[in-house]
């Protein structure tokens, strides 16, 4: 595992408060697995000490370029949104274990469900699955049309169903409201979002195979500080560390 100084190639607002940051540098070479994340330092000599975990959204290995999508929400991500092209960003990673893509049989479909800023990692994941020959369906949940992003890019990979809380785009409601028909042919489920959403997805999935990517406030990001634990009934220790054992877990493995 390593620390990299990556150079910003672009950093632009693509939806309301949603930024797409592209970073380049030799370190990108190791970022091969969807679902892994980078632990990003938001500023040098700043009063913001802690790094921000951000998922790998896409990687272009030819250009040595990694894409992150993030919501400029709190102080740290707002500071990140100020970064200009050619500035350096200090990142650790790739960290964590990504999605297991070997487990899915080629005749299976994959249903990728993401809410809000849980959406980004599904992009890289979708691309990988498609390359493996898996048919992919996305359900992407946003607050409203102004908050939506990357919809056309997802459509280029597979069928894409959008839900918005206010109904301004796609189906009005939550991602789970769109799951009904999609689970009939027993797809493998991959979902990223806040715990409440993951819980609802798990409930709706009713025993299907799947993977959930969890979120938690982190300290170290590498498994040393016990900040990001989640209870589990399947391991002797009684817990998992989201940063190093996850962030992706098999559905049912952790107690949400």
């Amino acid at each position: 595992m390593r620390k990299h100084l990556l150079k910003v190639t672009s950093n632009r607002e693509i939806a309301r408060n949603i930024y797409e940051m592209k970073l380049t540098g030799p370190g990108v070479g190791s970022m091969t697995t969807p679902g892994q994340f980078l632990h990003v330092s938001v500023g040098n000599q700043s009063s913001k000490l802690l790094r921000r975990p951000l998922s790998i959204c896409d990687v272009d290995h030819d250009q040595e370029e990694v894409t992150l999508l993030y919501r400029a929400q709190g102080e740290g991500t707002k500071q990140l949104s100020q970064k200009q092209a050619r500035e350096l960003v200090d990142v650790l990673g790739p960290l964590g274990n990504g999605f297991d893509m070997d487990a899915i049989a080629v005749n299976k479909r994959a249903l990728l469900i993401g809410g809000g800023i849980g959406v980004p990692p599904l992009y890289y994941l979708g691309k990988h699955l498609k390359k493996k020959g898996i048919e992919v369906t996305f359900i992407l949940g946003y607050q409203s049309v102004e908050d939506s992003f990357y919809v056309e890019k997802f459509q280029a990979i597979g069928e894409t169903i959008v839900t918005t809380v206010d109904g301004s785009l796609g189906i009005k409601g939550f991602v789970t409201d769109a799951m009904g028909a999609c689970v009939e042919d027993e797809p493998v489920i991959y979902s990223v979002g806040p715990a409440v959403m993951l819980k609802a997805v798990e409930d709706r999935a009713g025993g299907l195979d799947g993977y959930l990517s969890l979120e938690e406030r982190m300290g170290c990001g590498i498994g040393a500080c016990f900040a990001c634990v989640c209870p589990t009934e399947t391991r002797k220790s009684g817990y998992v560390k989201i940063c190093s054992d996850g962030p992706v877990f098999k559905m049912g493995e952790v107690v949400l």
Partner: protein
Amino acid sequence: MSRLSVSLPGLNMKNPILPASGCFGFGKEYAKWYDLSVLGGVTIKAATLEGRFGNPTPRVAETESGMLNAIGLQNPGVRNIIENELPALEKYNIPILANIAGSTEEEYIEVTRQISASPLVSAVELNISCPNVKEGGIHFGTDYKSAADLTRKVKDVSKKPVYVKLSPNVSNIVEMAQAVEEAGADGLSMINTLVGMKLDWRTGNPILANKTGGLSGPAIKPVAIRMIYEVSQKVSLPIIGMGGVSTAEDVLEMMSAGASAVAVGTANFVNPYVCPEIIEKLPELLDEIGMENISEMTGRSTKQWKTPLSSR
């Protein structure tokens, strides 16, 4: 004996830098980043008698130049640590300082008995200052008599030198230090975290599930420096200083205040390489001020006194 080496009871360190308890797990995670044998030593996460899950999440929050944590002493229990965690550290051949916590005197004593018997443990650090669990020892840490009693009993059973880790959340840190010195402590570790809290201004809710947490990081360094400065003049025990250290300059500042070795906590999260980077920088800084051995830095602040500012 290199110019960076320091020697404290039970801890013969090739440099004064060791990671602070709770910020370095049991070492194996950071071992993926660099060779731990460069360190002066390592402090492991608190051990309790039984394994503990700790507090609900969120367990950390960010503050200006600092962070709050309320981990709640999560650890797999002392047996497990001795059997499964310590052996992986043996190959680095560095002193191991074992942090000990408990809810009752009996628990502290039993954990000490067990862990101090491990040939891999060089010294124990009595954590009577964890602010994050109701029964985490903080009551020992703010009452002189309980602190002294506990120190005495732990000393009786410990096969290794005992460092008592002091809480900064007290009216008089010097009296506390003197109490544990008299009770037979071999050294002091200071400081643990200041009790703090952060609320989400939108909802009014605490960020931490535990509501309050321990404040660490550069924000608290001035408090640490002051306490080490005061205590080092009134007790003759060696002090492992900590609290907000993140650069080699900070290390020399803290040693000047009276510390004999320096532990680095929160800074590991900011930069996983911080400890080796500090160690590498130290000789440069010593050269800059014409100092040969780092051990001479300890307590400089009280040994001399010149007017500042005029230095430019």
